[in-house]
């Protein structure tokens, strides 16, 4: 346990000392809220959960893997593999640090929504929202794990992750309402990973209730989350692809 804590502290320090990480993870989401607010201030109730999820999506698919990919490319993972540290502890520690960062990001976005745009948030809505945000984060991070396992380099992983992110962002009811889409696409979107998270977080945060289809959404998310975790674990590599 002591080993896990020392490693986790080290990983946290590494993230906090990285200016790039700080900007994209903490300053950028708030900036995003300000930009959306400037363009469509009257829709910020609708937008805030959307921004939370789109941010969690980009974090899960791209940013959360970056440090791991860099460690793999620079042979840092290889050096860690040479120690008796079990792989599950390394990955557990890494995930923990990233989950904390992801939750902090969402908190910043909620704060920006409340303070800048009077998004109606209550204690109950927060209590309901965080588990939904967490579930989404974990599923997105697992999907990001598949991307980093399949790609040779961090640059390629970012490109793949960003492409999927943009696709999902536009069609998953985050920034554009679902009824703007053709019907066939709406039917597909309902089974994609981002849509259920948006519905869960939006009803929790804005109405302090569970979405009527919450069980279906969570089930779908669990399928994505566990399925992706299983595949990501199979694809995990200590060394870059030859």
């Amino acid at each position: 346990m002591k080993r896990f804590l020392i490693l986790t502290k080290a990983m946290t320090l590494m993230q906090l000392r990285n200016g790039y990480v700080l900007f994209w993870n903490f300053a950028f989401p708030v900036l995003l809220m300000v930009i959306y607010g400037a363009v469509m201030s009257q829709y910020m109730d609708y937008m805030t959960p959307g921004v939370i999820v789109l941010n969690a999506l980009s974090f899960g698919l791209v940013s959360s893997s970056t440090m791991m990919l860099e460690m793999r490319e620079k042979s840092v993972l290889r050096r860690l593999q040479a120690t008796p540290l079990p792989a599950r502890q390394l990955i557990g520690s890494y995930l923990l640090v990233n989950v904390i960062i992801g939750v902090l990001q969402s908190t910043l976005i909620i704060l920006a929504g409340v303070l800048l745009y009077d998004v109606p948030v209550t204690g109950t809505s927060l209590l309901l929202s965080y588990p939904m945000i967490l579930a989404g984060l974990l599923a997105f991070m697992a999907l990001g794990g598949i991307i980093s396992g399949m790609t040779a380099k961090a640059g390629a992983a970012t490109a793949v992750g960003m492409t999927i992110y943009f696709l999902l962002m536009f069609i998953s009811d985050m920034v554009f309402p679902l009824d703007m889409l053709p019907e066939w696409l709406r039917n597909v979107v309902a089974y994609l990973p981002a849509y259920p998270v948006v519905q869960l977080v939006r009803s929790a945060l804005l109405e302090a209730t569970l979405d009527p289809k919450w069980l279906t959404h969570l089930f779908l998310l669990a399928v994505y989350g566990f399925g992706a975790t299983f595949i990501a674990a199979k694809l995990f590599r200590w060394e870059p692809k030859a």
Partner: protein
Amino acid sequence: MSQPIIDVQKLTATYGPVTALNGVNLTVNKGEIFGLLGPNGAGKSTLLACVEGLHNPKNGSVHVNGVDVQADSASTKSQLGIQLQKTALLDDLTVAELVEVYAALYEVYLNSEQIDALLTRFDLLEKRNTLSRRLSGGQQQRLALAVAIANDPQIVLLDEPTSALDPHARRAVWDMIRELHNEGRTIVLTTHAMEEAEALCGRIAIIDRGQVVSCDTPAALISSLKLNAMLKATVELPLEQVRTLPDVNNARYTGQHLEVETARPEVTLTALHELAARSGRSISDVMLRQPNLEDVFLKLTGHALAESNPSA
């Protein structure tokens, strides 16, 4: 005979279609500095990777302190101190943090006095709060050594510990390696620098194209092959006369310089002086080069140490 602390038997390792090691047998004894000498791509790092539990061999076995690496790599890993060829450590951590973390990965928990003592040893105390990526090459190499022994291992594996260092920094690292050896630790290091192997190692395995070509002390390797010394001098004498001098095996001119291969240079040199005196010639710039590991390598493998393995 001391007990082998690392025992490699019939080790074959491949990377896809490439055979990196082919039936290697090797034993390292407790408390020695053992060198793996060979050109780039010879298989040295792969051999270390198999001992470190980082590469699964196709055939054969590696035992560390009697424990099979493949059967129980967690246990063997905990006995080793390791420095990989790329000294990539966790970025964005300070020198002191790095030492603390890497020791902790071995479940060794150092307090700040212990960390400072370790850093003092490797001349890094002043840099304790500096981010590791801001260190110079020599400092990073010393840090890699400090990290390698942070868990106080009895066996230390160093992959090219001085490559890319200037001569001054290289000698400093040599001293540190000798110090680790004086504490009773067993050191295995890879190098493609002949003078490094000669300066540090008690025994050397010469590795070429995935095989151990020969293994012995540097002196025994050199003497066993009965290699010639090379006598060089600036003098004008007919080659056919030089070749008849005692113990001369060959003679040639490169430019103005006479080069004489001889089994007994002192005898040949005296005879050469006599021949020059008789011929009324003067000898200058006399140089003697004793056979070294480079010659051993050339003789055993048919190519120079500096040449990379073409199959790598």
